[in-house]
């Protein structure tokens, strides 16, 4: 199947336009992070006239960025590990057992994900505040409250992808282990999990990304001490002037780990989507 000349040129033009659309904001972020404050307060320039790393130093003192970073790390780290652990059991059940309510459960989990976040936000906010007042358990404005909330956010996609991976593991392996006298948990931990490691890593990264990027609940459920990056980064704009170079530097620093993780594992996301979505 050969490609005609017209087609080839169409492809080049379209892909170039899309590349420009994607790259320009990314370039502006990186180049502006390397400018001194004076240069981002005047007309935009494509090439930094006086490149400097000062924004990367100053950004830590303009707002308490280190605290926000630690909060985000703790919340996203704990939430992603726990949520994937929960998803592993669900995926194991759905992949290896037929039982009543199996479909209903999968559909419900997927459906809750599609409901407007604002619908849960108001009641959850009130429940956390009132629970705190009544029992002294601090869920509102605490990292624990945020972690509990985030646990469910990546569940549907994690379950979906993991079921795809587990289904692709030959059942013969289970049966061989069963013959050797292994129970269900032994099969899960000794046979299935070691085989599905890449998929599980991909799902953990996805769950981490979800929590790392969540804005709505973070903006309502946190105070100055428990604030995460999603809310904290807006702090640069509430000063008497906007430190755009520092905002860009901070955005770059908080993006690099998740973007790198996602792009390194992109192969597994495509595989997971193919296994889960197209079936």
């Amino acid at each position, binding site marked *: 199947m050969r490609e*005609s000349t017209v087609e080839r040129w169409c492809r080049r033009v*379209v*892909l170039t336009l899309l590349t420009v659309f*994607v790259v*320009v*904001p*990314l370039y502006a972020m990186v180049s502006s992070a390397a400018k001194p404050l004076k240069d981002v*307060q005047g007309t*935009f320039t494509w090439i930094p006239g006086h490149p400097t790393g000062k924004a990367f130093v100053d950004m830590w003192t303009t707002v308490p960025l280190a605290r926000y970073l630690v909060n985000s790390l703790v919340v996203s780290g704990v939430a992603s590990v726990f949520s994937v652990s*929960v*998803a592993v*059991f669900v995926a194991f*059940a759905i992949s290896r*057992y*037929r*039982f009543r309510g199996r479909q209903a*459960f999968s*559909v419900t*989990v*997927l*459906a*809750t994900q*599609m*409901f*407007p976040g*604002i*619908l*849960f936000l108001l009641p959850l906010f*009130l*429940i956390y*505040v*009132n629970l705190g*007042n009544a029992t002294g358990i601090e869920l509102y404005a605490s990292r624990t409250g945020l972690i*509990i909330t985030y646990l*469910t956010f990546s*569940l549907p996609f994690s379950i979906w992808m993991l079921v795809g991976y587990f289904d692709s593991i030959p*059942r013969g392996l289970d049966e061989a282990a069963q013959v050797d006298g292994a129970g269900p948990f032994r099969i899960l931990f000794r046979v299935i999990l070691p085989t599905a490691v890449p998929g599980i890593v991909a799902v953990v990264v996805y769950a981490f*990304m979800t929590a790392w990027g969540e*804005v*709505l609940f973070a903006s*309502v459920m946190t105070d100055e001490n428990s604030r995460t*990056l999603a809310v904290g980064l*807006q702090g640069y704009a509430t000063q008497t002037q906007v430190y*755009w170079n520092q*905002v*860009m530097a901070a955005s*770059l620093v*908080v*993006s690099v780990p*998740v*973007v790198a993780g996602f*792009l390194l594992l*992109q192969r597994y996301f*495509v*595989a997971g*989507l*193919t296994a889960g*979505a*197209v*079936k």
Partner: protein
Amino acid sequence: MVTITRTGRDRPAGPPRTDTGRPARRRGPQRSRLPYLLLLPALILELAVHIIPMLVGVWMSLLELTQFHIRDWSSAPFVGLANYRATLDVHTPTGQQLLQSFGVTVAYTVLSVGLSWVFGLTAAVFLQRPFRGRALLRTLFLTPYALPVYAAVITWTFLFQRDTGLVNHVLVDQLHLMKQAPFWLIGDNSFTALVVVSVWRSWPFAFLCLMAGLQNVPVELYESAAIDGAGFWRRLSAVTLPMLRPVNQVLLLVLFLWTFNDFNTPYLLFGGSAPKQADIISIHIYKSSFIAWNFGEGSAMSVALLVFLLAVTAVYLLVTNRRRSHA
């Protein structure tokens, strides 16, 4: 003529997974309880974070839950459907605002989902054939999706600044398309800005899904189409699109729901107070809840939104499933 035979892959996509003919496992009562045990942690979480708050939300929408009652909501008087009447009646100013917000949201969703899908499909189709730099482009195109939403949107806020932003620099100083530098984040242009940012963020997801879907199209289909003399458009309409139908069914629904419920983009782009041209529904509810401190009315609007989304989803699934069985 190109004739396409439907393969076994062309099965309904999405959540209802069809049984693959595995023998049911029945090993006595002890074993059959195990799957439920495995689901228990997830079930508890779903109940605690989604199901119970949702029911509480419905209850809240029937209370006069204003700032006086938020600390102790048991004191809030029951007002029945008053909150619904106050917010959904289009003859009142509040209802008018909600209607306006609804209109903006519909326009925003249609434009953003449509463009994201077209961009994603174009990129996926053009990246099907191997060429030098393909892997690099694929990685590049996925980057906006991997970027945390706040980092992406804050960067766009910077680009859209009137005096110091890149957008006006290019349009006014470099291309001379406009004499006066326009405002992008207030006034009529704010809607355009919102759509641009939303498409920038969500088209890579469409691309990712469509790319995954295209990997399942057997090469032989394209080969036999080429032998039959099918050109680019013919191959697209007779092979690619029909084979992508299951992916599209889920993808369009997911994009629709995400975009319609989108809160992050306007919240971050406009710093919490979106201009009325870009006042989409989540922001509207957020404002009336947390700025006006009226959780009763906020909940009523949320419940109405949910009912609307459920209705649209149900109709969509009904229509697309029927069309598929007729096709």
